[in-house]
């Protein structure tokens, strides 16, 4: 790896970024996503965090430009130069420009924006070009799949030479240098919030919240430990909406926005797919919770105050859905945040409450604190 002369670096750990101009060759949502993932690639290795702003001056101003765009490094049309970025510093420092004449894409039919953005943000953080052909900071373009991307060793060494390693967090990563200590966990114990998603995965029970997930054995409350989602599911990063496992098939599904991923254990099985594969109507943009019921081999998907039933054998959504959740599951109040079936009971997590629902009695048999499931 190489650093710039004088080794310029940011003197703060939280950097702002703003996408001030977009490109016609990609949707702005995809540009936002690619940029977020590209920054995430670096913040997974060093104690930096990135905050997006939508107006005014940001540390890293990002824009798609054409030809001569006023910084004395004009672009040259299709191919050739794809993008450039400036080393850390005031004003132009950190700014990142992409050549609008290129065909940008989230995939491979054009230049993959995640790949180029991740490289350019290396410059914006203080890395020059590397002579290691396997490094992200090698000067010439080489496609990288955004999902499952791991920063090559040479780049990790380079960026940590500037900012030191990222320490693993025990709790929510609110402040990059927050010492890994107990108090971050009681946040969950005290807060009124619930989990984003809960699922079995093999023999373990996983609870997802923001950027953290907890793993535990079903019958043991000891040895519960938090990990960052990126450490085991880099593609998911944070804020998983829903998850469920079809144990007999050994696969699990993870949902985020209109996408889902399939895993075998912790192994991602390919790129994300769209939730419309399940037969959801287009107005459904995300899932709040999902639970697989072993007996009927059906998966219930909760969206707002309604739910859908998906037949896993026939691989299709059942007719006469959606139905109203509270009408069907008496005693379960509020929107469902997460759900999981254990030993014939369905556990519904709604805010700080976990409802234990008996499908035979068709009623709630007990109500617990959500956070009691992770040892609070």
């Amino acid at each position, binding site marked *: 790896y190489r650093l*710039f*002369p004088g080794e310029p670096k940011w003197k703060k750990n939280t950097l702002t970024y703003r996408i001030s101009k977009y490109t016609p060759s990609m949707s702005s949502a995809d540009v936002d996503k690619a940029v977020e993932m590209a920054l995430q690639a670096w913040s997974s290795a060093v104690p930096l965090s990135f905050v997006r702003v939508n107006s005014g001056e940001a540390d890293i101003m990002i824009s798609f430009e054409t030809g001569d765009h006023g910084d*004395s*490094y004009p*672009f040259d049309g299709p*191919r*050739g*130069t*794809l*993008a*450039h*970025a400036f080393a850390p510093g005031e004003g132009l420092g950190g700014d990142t420009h992409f*050549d609008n004449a290129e065909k940008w894409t989230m995939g491979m039919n054009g*230049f993959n924006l995640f790949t*180029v953005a991740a*490289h*350019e943000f290396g*410059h914006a953080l203080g890395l*020059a*070009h590397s*002579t290691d*052909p396997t490094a992200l900071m090698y*000067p*010439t*373009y080489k496609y990288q799949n955004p999902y499952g991307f791991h920063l090559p060793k040479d780049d990790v060494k380079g960026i940590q030479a500037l900012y030191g390693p990222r320490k693993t967090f025990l709790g929510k990563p609110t402040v990059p240098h927050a010492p890994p200590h107990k108090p971050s966990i009681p946040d969950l114990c005290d807060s009124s919030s619930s989990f984003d998603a809960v699922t079995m995965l093999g023999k373990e029970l996983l609870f997802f919240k923001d950027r953290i997930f907890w793993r535990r054995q079903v019958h043991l409350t000891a040895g519960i430990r938090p990990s960052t989602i990126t450490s085991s599911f880099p593609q998911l990063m944070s804020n998983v909406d829903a998850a469920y496992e079809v144990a007999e098939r050994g696969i699990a599904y993870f949902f985020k926005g209109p996408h889902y991923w399939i895993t075998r254990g912790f192994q991602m099985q390919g790129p994300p797919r769209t939730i419309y594969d399940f037969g959801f109507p287009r107005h459904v943009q995300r899932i709040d919770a999902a639970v697989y019921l072993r007996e009927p081999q059906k998966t219930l998907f909760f969206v707002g105050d309604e739910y859908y039933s998906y037949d896993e054998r026939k691989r299709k959504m059942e007719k006469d859905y959606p139905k109203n959740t509270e009408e069907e599951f008496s005693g379960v109040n509020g929107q469902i945040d997460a759900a999981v079936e254990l030993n014939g009971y369905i556990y519904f997590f709604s805010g700080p409450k976990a409802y234990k629902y008996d499908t035979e009695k068709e009623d709630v048999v007990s109500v617990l604190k959500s956070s009691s499931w992770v040892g609070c």
Partner: protein
Amino acid sequence: VPSLFAGTPRSLRNDYHLAQAYLDKYYTRKGGHPIGEMVARGGNSMVKKIKELQAFFGLQVTGKLDQTTMDVIKRPRCGVPDVAN
């Protein structure tokens, strides 16, 4: 110019200009205010930059714009120079 090329005469002129622009963009130290630089055609500064490029990309350092060197020059890339800037 022929001394720089191990390539065929046909693509001579285009490749030469392409290479010159590439070396000017990525292998020319431009600190502070940009300065005009008279570059003798094929002068030793061009050979020197070709050698720098070949060393950076791990190619055989010949100082000539041979095929492998031209292949690298034609690859899409980042606009940040490869030499200290």
